[in-house]
């Protein structure tokens, strides 16, 4: 029954790196598969800029987004509170500007929620955000970086309610609930559909002065998909209006609290909605085992991810060597300009990985190319610096004597400077390789695969086991690569 779309290509389904986005994307994917379409999953894309950028450039075909995020981040408007006006605005701007299309909303809102421990709420009599503003000076907050930076997050909230907190810490989404439960902070931001709100027995403070804009979830599809495969768009539209907030919170709880696999949750949800045919078979659910058992069970996939990881490192490192070693030799012959040029390259090193990926998104999109380019850029500096220093500082007495005895400049470079600098250059390559193995985990944020994939997914799903299944092999890989290159370096001495 495998029907094939008019253009025989898989529909690329993506998500952002948090649980709800994974569930919705998986529901999109399974629904498309049930309608006979091939699907390619690119889940866990870094941030709104990465995911929407990928959609706009056609690197992905569909991902779940929220109208409020669309209004503020994608359109760039100030917050406003009428849900219908917001949807109309993002729909129109995205269609006219980018050719993308917001399908009718899925049926629930997932707005920001500000939560405190029940005990805090009771002792300070907190029920609303206005109450929080009254006692804010006594409380420590742990907010996601996203929330701290966005106009519809902390800055707007502080202004709207006159809220001043004692401290504000930036916390990763994966740890903020634990931080709140452990008493490290008193206030966190969350999403109104978070399953963890129930698990940790938290009180969500109501938005009594209507600050948070509406965040209706919807599938957003690319121009390419609308053109190539209207049946896929039609299939995705089947979900519109079917998922209410109670159902979404249930699904999130199954993921965040019960630890059920995303595929199972999505399958069950689609079945319950009557969207899957009777022949659709449930996916098997592996029980929650230990890390090692998990790694053993997933070893096939992990081996493939390790191979992909090594590929990313090897290709980017080889390219960096081809560029940085000759460049270092060239610069060493003009030390003053050389030093400046190398410092400029060193600046690349200070750009955080995810930011570098975001910069490149409009130019080269997502997937393996931008990952290779980013890793290449990160590898340049250590190799360039060591080549330059090694060649410039190579035993001056030996270099001078070689020249004075009649070696040509090329012979001095090839027979004296370069061999004497080889161990230093190799040390630079080794440093670059180890940095690369670590940085390559970020490639998962832009859908390039590698061992970052389980790490990103594990962080999003609060699944330590999954995080470790990527982190442990990545660490081992770094050690192995370092040890192998150390052997090469020793042979060069």
């Amino acid at each position, binding site marked *: 029954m495998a029907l094939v779309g008019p253009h025989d290509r898989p529909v690329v389904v993506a998500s952002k790196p948090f649980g709800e986005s994974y569930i919705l994307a998986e529901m999109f994917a399974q629904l498309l598969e049930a309608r006979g379409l091939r699907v390619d999953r690119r889940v866990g894309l870094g941030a709104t800029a990465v995911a929407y950028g990928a959609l706009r450039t056609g690197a992905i075909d569909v991902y779940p987004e929220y109208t409020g995020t669309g209004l503020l981040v994608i359109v760039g408007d100030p917050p406003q509170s009428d849900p219908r006006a917001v949807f109309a605005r993002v729909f129109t701007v995205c269609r006219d500007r980018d050719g993308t299309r917001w399908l009718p909303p899925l049926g629930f809102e997932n707005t920001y929620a500000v939560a405190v421990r029940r005990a805090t709420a009771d002792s300070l009599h907190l029920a609303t955000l206005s109450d929080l503003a009254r006692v804010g000076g006594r409380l420590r907050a742990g907010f996601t970086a996203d929330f701290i930076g966005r106009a519809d997050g902390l800055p707007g909230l502080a202004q709207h309610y006159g809220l001043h907190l004692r401290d504000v810490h930036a916390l990763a989404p994966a740890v903020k609930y634990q931080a709140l439960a452990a008493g490290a902070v008193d206030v966190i931001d969350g999403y109104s559909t978070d399953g963890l709100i129930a698990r940790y027995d938290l009180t969500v403070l109501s938005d009594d002065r209507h600050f948070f804009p509406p965040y209706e979830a919807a599938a957003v599809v690319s121009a390419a998909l609308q053109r190539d495969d209207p049946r896929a768009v039609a299939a995705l539209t089947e979900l519109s209006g079917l998922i209410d907030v109670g159902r979404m919170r249930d699904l999130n709880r199954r993921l965040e609290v019960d630890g059920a696999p995303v595929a199972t949750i999505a399958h069950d949800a689609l079945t319950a909605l009557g969207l899957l045919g009777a022949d659709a078979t449930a996916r098997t659910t592996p029980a929650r085992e230990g890390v090692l058992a998990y790694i053993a069970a997933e070893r096939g996939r992990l081996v493939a991810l390790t191979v992909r990881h090594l590929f990313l490192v090897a290709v980017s490192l080889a390219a960096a060597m081809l560029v940085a070693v000759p460049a270092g030799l060239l610069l060493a012959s003009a030390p003053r300009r050389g030093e400046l040029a190398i410092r400029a390259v060193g600046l690349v090193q200070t750009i955080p990985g995810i930011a570098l990926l975001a910069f490149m998104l409009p130019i080269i999109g997502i997937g393996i190319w931008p990952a290779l380019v980013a890793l290449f850029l990160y590898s340049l500096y250590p190799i360039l610096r060591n080549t330059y220093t090694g060649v410039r500082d190579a035993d001056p*007495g030996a270099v*001078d*004597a*070689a020249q*004075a*005895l*009649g070696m*040509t400049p090329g012979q001095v470079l090839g*027979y004296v400077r370069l061999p*004497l600098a080889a161990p230093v250059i190799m040390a630079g390559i080794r440093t670059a390789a180890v940095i690369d193995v670590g940085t390559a985990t970020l490639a998962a944020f832009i859908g390039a695969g590698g061992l970052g994939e389980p790490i990103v997914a594990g962080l999003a799903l609060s699944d330590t086991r999954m995080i470790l299944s990527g982190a442990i092999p990545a660490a081992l890989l770094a050690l192995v690569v370092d040890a192998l290159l150390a052997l090469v370096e020793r042979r060069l001495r």
Partner: protein
Amino acid sequence: MNDPASLRAEDLSKRFGTAVALDHISITVPAGECLALIGESGSGKTTLLRSLNRMVEPDSGTVYVDERPTRDVDPVALRRRMGYVPQDGGLLPHWRVRRNVGLVPWLAGDHASGARADEALRLVGMDPAVYAERWPSELSGGQRQRVAIARALAARPGILLLDEPFGALDAITRAELHDMFLQLHAELGMTAVLVTHDIREAIVLADEIAVVHAGRVEQQTTPQLLLAAPATPYVAALLARAGVT
């Protein structure tokens, strides 16, 4: 063996930024003789030596080898015809002794550069069977200088330039190398220019001595005449300070 060549520097000047290293300086070395350039640090003696093989290009003036201006000769070709021994030996640390010593014949495309190296090692009193396969780091300071001299002589150049070659050695080793140098010079008859700050060394090794001061030659003459008749107060003071008068 290349014939010993005559060497003449005429009216050389060289500035490094504002510092004057050579100030219209001239020297002459007849073929087969050994000239010692003696002077304090910063006198310009090393710059003068390095002008001879174009490791330094003077701002003005001319160097002649066998009365032919060196500026007409490719510097690389020129240097291959001149042996060079720096103070620290300047051996390539990643090459064994034999390869180091055979360097210049090898550069010249001599397929027997290994054999040339072994001959040169014997000249400086080092048994190739013992030393040829060693790394420079496995040699003593005196052995290293012997190897450096062997390397400078391996292609049998007509001219040998030495930049304080014995300066860093202990007194006993230095005396041994002095004897060896005298013997080599007598045997091979090459023209030699030796930079040193040790006037006793100059007296022992050189046919003539040029006292260099502030980028000029104060006096060039034989050791005997220098001792007998210092031409300037500076030369007299230098000799007095060294206690050789």
